[in-house]
């Protein structure tokens, strides 16, 4: 093996060396093996009679009902009774074991490593350097993995929630002909995500960053036969790429000014850079551009709602729990940089806050259940960025963890609902949209377990006390409030606005967004589970709770949602109500982000406990008010079915159409790009210049030179003699004229 353990401090070996932590390389390798195995199995055509077993023309594209109608009609004529037979992939059994199995193994290994970390309490990161990847002059980049408290948190989230979602997918994607391909992509995604969080330097992180973008594209466009899905995949990838450009520029600037790209090196040398200088700010802002792409913040968020075209477990894993949180992780990882630039940190917080409220308002008027959750994700990511933006890296990570719990629960729950709806419509050969809330209603009698668990998640995301979301959201808001006076951020100047004022505004925006969050989530629950059943009398009989393999994962996530808050109980509450150990996550992450946090809060006065408790009270009141408001104002029994829906008017229509952001981007960027590409780059540069001038031109040049040469072939021997003699003259001239 080519394992070399890097000695991180003088001659003292790392406390983790020699423990199970040395097997950290196995964490990403297991899902990679799963990818290979499942991928090979997916290449094996398993279905006689199907044109391509990997393409599911049987499964309707999520969100597009018209195509379903036509394909169903044709199939009903052709296949007759065979229509309802289950067409499972031949290797489905093996894949069902391998796919989730590698994730569960990874998770168990992660638990083991976490145990080792918890007992040894290492202060410094544990680096495993495998080989020298890019040794080019001054640039020395190793393929190395870094194991520290921050990456441990992410590993547990990724493998844990990932394992649950894999198990859920076994039930959800059971009848899909592309079953092995799905699991191979999902495993590949986990591999790349683990590379991202385990990378010891920015380039390895970037490999994972790009890889998860790729897998996101593959999985969003999983049912690529429908153009809508393929376009959604492309949109996600392209917008990610724009962000990646920012990330790359940040890396280049880092290398140009510091010369190293590994985290330990950069954090050591970051102190050399002038705090608050334009250079640091520029590096951080470019890095943040990458985060806006990956984590769907303004301006690059527009891909996330479209990404709901992929299978629901994919939305749960990638677009709720893990990939979109990569941006938050990156900023937490680069805390040593962001804490040096108050302007950049404030920018992150501002963008996060604006995105939070903006996306929340859009979620108010969405009818597709997954779109509501998508905008909810964008909004909650905004919260996380507010957290890491104000230098409360622990709070941001805390919210990341709790959000992965309840958002995955929400998505998987909606997956159960969609599963039931789709099965019902399938049985009655209806062409209705299985995801539109206007076609749902009153489902609590048919999906009781899902109903209860989703309400738990809704309360959590709204911030009802003692659920996980309450603790994490409040901690973020409290951090914002605390830093509004005396911290380096408060004394900074953001585009002319004093930092302190800005932070108070951000706090207010956070509260407003919490209010709206409560409203739209309650709306979702009301329209889906309460009120009259709009699904149709024929379909009702087919609505049922999903199989136990799916609901069990929901239950586990529900438990995590309820008790997740215990990860970081704040002092303010445990002093009053002794619930449990205090600030677990803060202490855990302190070796990694502690110095950066301290740098920002230096000088900030401690907020008195009474004020904090008042703030918590305000937040709770707002959450409850939101729920009550929604229950009061929204009448589920007055909602028409989708088929009878009345188009919205005025401002409601603007919100329902997502403030026409997509259309605006189309007008300002996409269409001009097409125009420039077609008229200038294609016609003039490609056809005219490259084809015409270079290719045809060089051919014409060769031909004309040849024609000139052919003029020499007169066939006239006398002329040949002349040329010969002139040549001799010239040659002798070379000798004589020296």
């Amino acid at each position, binding site marked *: 093996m080519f394992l070399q353990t890097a000695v991180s401090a003088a001659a003292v070996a790392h406390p983790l060396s020699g423990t199970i932590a040395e097997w950290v390389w196995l964490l990403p390798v297991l899902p990679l093996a799963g990818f290979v195995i499942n991928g090979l199995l997916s290449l094996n055509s398993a279905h006689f009679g199907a044109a391509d077993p990997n393409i599911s023309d049987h499964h309707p594209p999520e969100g597009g009902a018209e195509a379903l109608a036509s394909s169903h009609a044709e199939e009903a004529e052709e296949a007759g009774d065979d229509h309802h037979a289950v067409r499972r992939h031949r290797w489905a059994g093996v894949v069902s074991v391998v796919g989730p199995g590698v994730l569960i193994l990874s998770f168990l290994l992660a638990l083991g490593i976490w145990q080792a970390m918890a007992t040894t309490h290492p202060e410094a990161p544990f680096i495993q350097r495998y080989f020298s990847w890019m040794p080019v002059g001054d640039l020395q980049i190793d393929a190395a993995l870094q194991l520290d408290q921050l990456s441990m948190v992410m590993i547990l989230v990724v493998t844990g929630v990932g394992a649950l979602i894999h198990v859920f997918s076994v039930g959800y994607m059971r009848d899909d002909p592309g079953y092995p391909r799905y699991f191979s992509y999902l495993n590949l995604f986990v591999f790349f995500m683990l590379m991202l969080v385990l990378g010891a330097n920015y380039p390895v992180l970037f490999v994972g960053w790009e890889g998860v973008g790729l897998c996101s594209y593959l999985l969003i466009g999983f049912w690529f036969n429908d153009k809508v899905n393929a376009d959604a995949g492309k949109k996600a990838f392209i917008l990610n790429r724009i962000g990646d450009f920012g990330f790359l520029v940040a890396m280049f600037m880092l290398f140009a000014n510091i010369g190293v790209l590994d985290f330990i090196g950069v954090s050591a040398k970051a102190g050399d850079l002038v705090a608050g200088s334009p250079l640091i700010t520029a590096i951080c802002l470019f890095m943040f551009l990458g985060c806006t792409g990956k984590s769907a913040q303004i301006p690059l968020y527009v891909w996330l709602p479209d990404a709901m075209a992929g299978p629901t477990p994919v939305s749960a894993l990638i677009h709720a729990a893990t990939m979109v949180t990569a941006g938050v992780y990156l900023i937490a990882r680069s805390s040593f940089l962001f804490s040096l630039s108050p302007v950049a940190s404030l920018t992150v917080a501002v963008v996060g806050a604006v995105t939070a409220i903006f996306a929340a308002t859009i979620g108010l008027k969405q009818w597709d259940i997954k779109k509501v959750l998508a905008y909810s994700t964008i909004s909650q990511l905004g919260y996380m960025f507010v957290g890491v933006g104000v230098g409360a890296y622990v709070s941001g990570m805390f919210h990341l963890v709790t959000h992965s719990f309840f958002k995955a629960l929400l998505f998987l729950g909606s997956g159960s609902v969609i599963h039931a709806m789709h099965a019902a419509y399938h049985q009655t050969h209806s062409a209705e949209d299985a995801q539109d809330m206007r076609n749902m209603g009153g489902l609590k009698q048919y999906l009781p377990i899902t109903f209860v668990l989703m309400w738990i998640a809704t309360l959590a995301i709204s911030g009802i006390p003692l659920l996980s979301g309450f603790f994490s959201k409040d901690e973020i808001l409290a951090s914002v409030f605390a830093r509004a006076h005396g911290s380096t951020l408060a004394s900074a100047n953001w585009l002319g606005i004093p930092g302190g004022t800005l932070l108070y505004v951000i706090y207010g925006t956070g509260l407003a967004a919490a209010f709206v969050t409560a409203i739209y989530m309650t709306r979702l629950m009301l329209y889906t589970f309460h009120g009259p059943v709009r699904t149709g009398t024929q379909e009702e009989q087919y609505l049922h709770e999903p199989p136990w393999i799916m609901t069990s994962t929901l239950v586990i996530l529900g438990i995590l949602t309820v008790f997740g808050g215990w990860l970081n109980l704040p002092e303010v509450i445990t002093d009053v109500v002794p619930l449990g150990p205090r600030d677990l996550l803060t202490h855990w992450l302190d070796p990694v982000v502690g110095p950066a946090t301290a740098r920002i809060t230096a000088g900030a006065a401690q907020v008195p406990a009474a004020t904090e408790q008042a703030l918590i009270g305000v937040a709770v009141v707002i959450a409850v008010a939101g729920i009550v408001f929604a229950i009061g104002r929204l009448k589920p029994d007055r909602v028409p079915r989708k088929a009878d829906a009345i188009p919205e008017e005025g401002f409601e229509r603007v919100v329902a159409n997502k403030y026409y952001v997509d259309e605006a981007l189309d007008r300002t960027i996409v269409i001009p790009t097409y125009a420039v590409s077609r008229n200038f780059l294609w016609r003039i540069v490609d056809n005219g210049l490259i084809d015409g001038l270079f290719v045809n031109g060089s051919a014409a040049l060769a031909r004309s030179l040849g024609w000139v040469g052919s003029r*020499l*072939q*007169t*066939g*006239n*021997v*006398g002329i040949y*003699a002349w040329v010969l*003699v002139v040549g001799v003259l010239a040659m002798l001239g070379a000798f004589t004229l020296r």
Partner: protein
Amino acid sequence: MLAESLALTAALFIIGVVGVLIHRNAIIIFMCVELMLTAVNLTFVAFSRFYGTAGQVFVVFVMTVSAAEAAVGLAIIIAIFRHRQTVDLRNINLLKG
């Protein structure tokens, strides 16, 4: 006598070159080439007087080659004449590209 011989050689050679350039009759051009070869023979002989007999040996070779070349070249001219009924160079341009 070396310098004078070489001067004569040069003059004869140049006369041959000029003859090749200004004539259009293929046979006369051929004869001018023979003149050039003869001039070269003179060069060799002139040098061999002072620098060993190798020059004269080479003259033998030059003469041999010149004879062979004359035979073949004239055969070609005869063949061309049969086709074109002319030995004027202006009309012998089948190699025209």
